[in-house]
Structure formats: structure tokens, C-alpha cells
């Protein structure tokens, strides 16, 4: 019983990490039709900016309020980089899918190289608050606090995103744009502002994933964003392009499947099963669990 609880909660922690990366990716693709392979860079920027801020930024630190300031700095940095990427590189390439893929793949590779050149290729120890290294007893299972922190953060982000999409003018524009972007412009709305906004939101969520992923794994390395991005893409496809709720469901499915199969089967088998789940969803429900139906 303890093992099941532990696996469930650590699986949900992993799901939370996937959701934070995938939610922005999904919104960006759903609204702007941009397959952003540079999304992992925002995660890397968030992680390294938090790591740097905890050691160097006045008022920031590895513990208490200082850690919150460091994370906020990381989130802001990730969001800022995402906005710059949208404005400078993506905006001239809307509706040019191949060029977008080339640019974002190139940018992700260049970003990793830049992080390596600046801080080295080896993992750096992440400045973690003391309590995040401790465990909490849940139904008899000793669950790492870092995992619980990720779950709480992902739930808060999910709630904030849903409230934003449901109650704000830009949320309405994004929901409509995911359905029919052209018609949004035909109502007199400059949809490009919404594109920039979803990049900012996606960048912030990915950067938060980077910062909290650093707490979870205990280290930060240049390639971390890229490896998480693969699973985030799988989550987006399973959940349905453009659906935040779909991403949440899919992240939970992927996180739990990975964790349970890796534990009860062979290590690494969980990753294979996730790819199998992706194949099944693509065969049975190509639009994903909650995505818009694609028309030929």
C-alpha cells in the first residue's frame, strides 16, 4: 500500500513537471500553429536563471523568501526570452511551418550550447530549500517534499490558466483563436498580440518547471529542457493540441504510467509504454483526449 501511494505521488510529481512544460506548448500550438522545439530552452533559462539568482541576486537565496524571489526571477527570465523568441524569430515565420521547425530546432541546439559554454556541460547542484529535501508522510508513505511542491505548483498553474482562459478578454481570444484564428481577425482583433501573450505564458510555465525541476532533481544541466520536452510533446499530442485540461489529463496518465511500469517492470520500460500509449491514442483518437477535431 505504501509503495502504491509513493509511486502515485511521485508519478503525479512527474506529471506536474510534464504539465508545466506541456501547457504552454499546447496553447502555442493550438493558437498559433507553431511547433516550438525551442520550448525546452525556456525551461533551461528558467532553471539557470533561478540557480544564478539564488547565488547572486540581492534579496534572493536558496531558502525561504529568498528562494521565492529566485524562482520569480527565473520565471520572469524564461517569459522574457519566450517573448523575444516570438517577436524576433517566430513572428516573421507564421504559416511557414518548415522554416519554424528549422528555426526552433536550431535555437534549442544553440541555446543548449550557449548554456554549456557559459556554465559548463556538467550538472550543477541546485540551491534547494532545506524542507524540499525532506519527506512528508502520506498514508504511511514517505513522499519527497519536492514532488509535493511540484504537484501544488502545477495545480495552482492549472487553476490560474483556466481562470485566465475563462474570465479574461485575452483568454476568450485565445479560446476562440484555437478554434478559428482567421475568424478572430475577421472580428477586428489583432491576434498577434495573443500569440505574444501565449508565448509569455508558456515561457513562464516552462521556466517554473525548470526552477522546480531543479528542486526535484537536485541539479540543473543544459540538456534538461530537451529531454523533458520530448515527454511534453507526447503529453500535448495525447491531451489534444490547444487544450490545457487535456494536457493535465495526459500528463497525469503519462507520469503515472511511467512511474508504475518503471517500478514494477524494468527501468526504462515505462518510457516505452508512454510511446505505446501515444500510438494507441493517435490510432483511436487522433485529435487527442480533448483536442479540436482536425479537418482535411
Amino acid at each position: 500500500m505504501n509503495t502504491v501511494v509513493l509511486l502515485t505521488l511521485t508519478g503525479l510529481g512527474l506529471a506536474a513537471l510534464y504539465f508545466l512544460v506541456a501547457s504552454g506548448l499546447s496553447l502555442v500550438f493550438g493558437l498559433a500553429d507553431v511547433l516550438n522545439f525551442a520550448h525546452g530552452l525556456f525551461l533551461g533559462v528558467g532553471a539557470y536563471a533561478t540557480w544564478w539568482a539564488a547565488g547572486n541576486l540581492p534579496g534572493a537565496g536558496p531558502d525561504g523568501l529568498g528562494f521565492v524571489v529566485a524562482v520569480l526571477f527565473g520565471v520572469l527570465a524564461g517569459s522574457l526570452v519566450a517573448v523575444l523568441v516570438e517577436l524576433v524569430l517566430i513572428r516573421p515565420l507564421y504559416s511557414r511551418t518548415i522554416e519554424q521547425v528549422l528555426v526552433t530546432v536550431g535555437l534549442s541546439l544553440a541555446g543548449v550550447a550557449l548554456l554549456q559554454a557559459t556554465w559548463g556541460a556538467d550538472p550543477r547542484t541546485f540551491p534547494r530549500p532545506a524542507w524540499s529535501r525532506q519527506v512528508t508522510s502520506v498514508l504511511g508513505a514517505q513522499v519527497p517534499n519536492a514532488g509535493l511542491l511540484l504537484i501544488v505548483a502545477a495545480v495552482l498553474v492549472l487553476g490560474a490558466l483556466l481562470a485566465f482562459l475563462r474570465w479574461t478578454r485575452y483568454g476568450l481570444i485565445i479560446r476562440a483563436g484555437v478554434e478559428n484564428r482567421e475568424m478572430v481577425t475577421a472580428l477586428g482583433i489583432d491576434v498577434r498580440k495573443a500569440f505574444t501573450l501565449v508565448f509569455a505564458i508558456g515561457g513562464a510555465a516552462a521556466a517554473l518547471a525548470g526552477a522546480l525541476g531543479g528542486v526535484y532533481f537536485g541539479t540543473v544541466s543544459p540538456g534538461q529542457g530537451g529531454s523533458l520536452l520530448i515527454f511534453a510533446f507526447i503529453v500535448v499530442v495525447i491531451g489534444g493540441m490547444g487544450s490545457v485540461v487535456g494536457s493535465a489529463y495526459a500528463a497525469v496518465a503519462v507520469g503515472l504510467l511511467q512511474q508504475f511500469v518503471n517500478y514494477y517492470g524494468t527501468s526504462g520500460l515505462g518510457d516505452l509504454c508512454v510511446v505505446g500509449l501515444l500510438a494507441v491514442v493517435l490510432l483511436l483518437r487522433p485529435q487527442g483526449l480533448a483536442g479540436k477535431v482536425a479537418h482535411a
Partner: protein
Amino acid sequence: MVEPVLSVADLSVRIAGLHILQGVSFEVAPTGVTVLLGRNGVGKTTTLRAIVGLTPRGGEVGGTVRMGARSLLARPTHRLVRDGLGYVPEDRCVFAGLTVAENLRLAERRGTTPAYDKVFALFPELDRRGRQRAGSLSGGQQQMLAIGRVLLNDNRLLLVDEPTKGLAPKVVTEVAEVLERVAESVPVLLVEQNLAVVRRLASDAVVLSAGRVAWTGDARELLLETALTKSLLGVGAEVKA
């Protein structure tokens, strides 16, 4: 001579190597309904979409389109719409996942007062169904929503693409009634296949054939000439309004 609200001169559109419009020229009168007619595939929808700046990316658009003194072709769609070019697309294009109220709210513009009274007077159904998802509305109700959305704001010209397509006869009559009332206050460029609706609404007609203007003139005159309508549109005009 009354100044036209819209002047289209030598409009050409090429999409994916196909020369769909080949030098289309016509004018839209500042009052009433000007109807754009023609057989399927002659470029009626392409004309409307080119005017409102929605030619697919990669398509080439040439010629000039003017609304008053302002040239339209180089301007982005959202600016044209804010300047008073209302567009009701073919197949309605309501946002199926949003409620009726949200569809309308989306069309509101900052700095202006949306004319909900006018819209709900024309379409009381929209007021009653505010919380219903637009995707669950009937075709006629969706058409009312698509038109109502545009009428929330002041327009200098409305482009309406096949508003009666796929609708039941009773609903066609309702939509025609509404457009008739709308056209009392704002000029309309209408694409329509239903000649009964054309007879009821249109004052001027522009007939396209194979991407060119084949005939322009008084719509009622056109519909009286059975041989002409047969040759241009492939149908007789003996339809009761």
C-alpha cells in the same frame, strides 16, 4: 453620380498556381444590396476574401480595392474590420466551443458601445440562448449569431457570403428579412445563390464567370431576362420572391 462605398478595380487573385480572379472590376453602391452572382467556383468567395484580406498565405493579390479614399489591399484584416468592413463568412464560422454570449462579447471593441439592443431586437433568440454553446445551435441560429456578431459594431459596408446556404426555407425567409432591415442602414455586398433571396434584396448585381466580370447592372433587370440568367448562372429566374 453617387460615390460608391467600395471600388474594386482589376482585382486578380492567384492561389497555388490557379488564376482564380482575372481582373475583376465593379463598384458597390452606398445604399442597398449589391449581389455577387455566378456559378459555383467562379470566384465569388475568393473576391470577398480578397477584399477583407483573407486570401490564403502564398496567394498573390493584384489590382486595387478602395473603400472611400482608402486603399484596402495592403492592410491587415483586423484593421479593415475596425475601419467598418464587416464580414460574415460562408458557413457562419461561429466559435462552436464558446457560448452565444462569448461569441458576441468577442466582437465587442474597446472604446465603442456594442449595439446589443439592436442585435437582440433583430435576433431575440440570441438573448435567450446566451449561455448555450454556439456549436449546439441550429444552422439558422448560427447564421443569426454570425450576423449579430458583426452588427454589434458600426459598419460602413457588410460583406455577407451565402447566408442562406443549407438553411430550411422558413429560416431562409427570416435571414432575408433581417438582411433587408440591415440594408436599410448599411450597404451590403452579398454573395447568394438563392435567386428568390436575390430578387427580394438586391438592387445591383455583378455576375462573375470564370474569374471575370461577365455582367453588371440592375439586379431586377437581370432576373427578368430568363435567357441571360440561364446563360450566366445556369438557372432560370422564375422564382417567386
